[in-house]
């Protein structure tokens, strides 16, 4: 179950960030912020490695066990970068069900296609915060999806 979904613009400011247990919102914001460093590291590492093809899905960034909060979560962060350098970061609570890699990938694909739809909306100015209700409802469906 995704507990936090964030869309970060290429200049590293958030276009959209939403977390599910709202009392820990600041903590999730902070987690996403720190994950950006890891994302940047992965992007530049792949560039130097002269890999022929670079995937958009970055995979598990790093997990943390959280014993300060009761009940303890196992929070995993996953990242994804589009060709336009827009980053998606997802924090997932995998203490209940171990989400398979494929499921995470499909969640990111859905995010990417919804983001593309937002971009193509003529009422949306690129660079603004995302306020589309369709995008909101798609993210809500991801957050309550696997429980």
């Amino acid at each position, binding site marked *: 179950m995704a507990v936090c979904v964030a869309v970060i613009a290429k200049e590293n400011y958030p276009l959209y960030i939403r977390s599910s247990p709202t009392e820990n919102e600041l903590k999730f914001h902070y987690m996403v912020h720190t994950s950006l460093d890891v994302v940047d590291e992965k992007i530049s590492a792949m*560039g130097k490695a002269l890999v022929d093809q670079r995937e958009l899905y970055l995979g598990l960034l790093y997990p943390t066990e959280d014993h300060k909060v009761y009940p303890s979560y196992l929070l995993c962060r996953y990242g994804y970068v589009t060709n*336009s350098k827009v980053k998606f970061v997802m924090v997932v609570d995998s203490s209940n069900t171990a989400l398979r890699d494929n499921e995470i990938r499909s969640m990111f694909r859905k995010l990417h296609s919804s983001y593309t739809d937002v971009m193509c909306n*003529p009422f949306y100015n*690129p660079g603004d915060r995302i306020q589309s209700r369709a995008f909101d409802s798609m993210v809500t469906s991801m957050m309550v999806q696997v429980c």
Partner: protein
Amino acid sequence: MADAALFEFLHTEMVAELWAHHSDPGPGGQKMSLCVLEGMGFRVGQALGERLPQETLAFREELDVLKFLCKDLWVAVFQKQMDSLRTNHQGTYVLQDNSFPLLIRMASGLQYLEEAPKFLTFTCGLLRGTLSTLGIKSLVTASVASLPTCKFQVVIQKT
């Protein structure tokens, strides 16, 4: 190919409408219409730059992005590929199209040479918008030597 015709007609009307507004065009009026047209192309390019590379893998370098423009973008918008891409490896690229679909219905040869540039402004904006979404700031200009061959010059702005 009815779909291609739809865009061509719409584009022709756009140029005609923006030109007609300044029916008594001094140099200032003309420039504003071209800016508006280029701006439209820019916004469309931004959206296309997000949608078209969705399934492709990440671009490794600038030349890959330009190749993507010449092949995938051109095929998506004009149903054909760009005919040639040249570069001086220092940030300037010249894309040449030998039978540009928006000009091919007009004339072939030197007739209407002065009118041709305004039909290329939207496409210049389109290229600039797509490049901007893919992370490249650029300046795009177009030139016509004889219809329907035209060249788009892309100069990458180094920051």
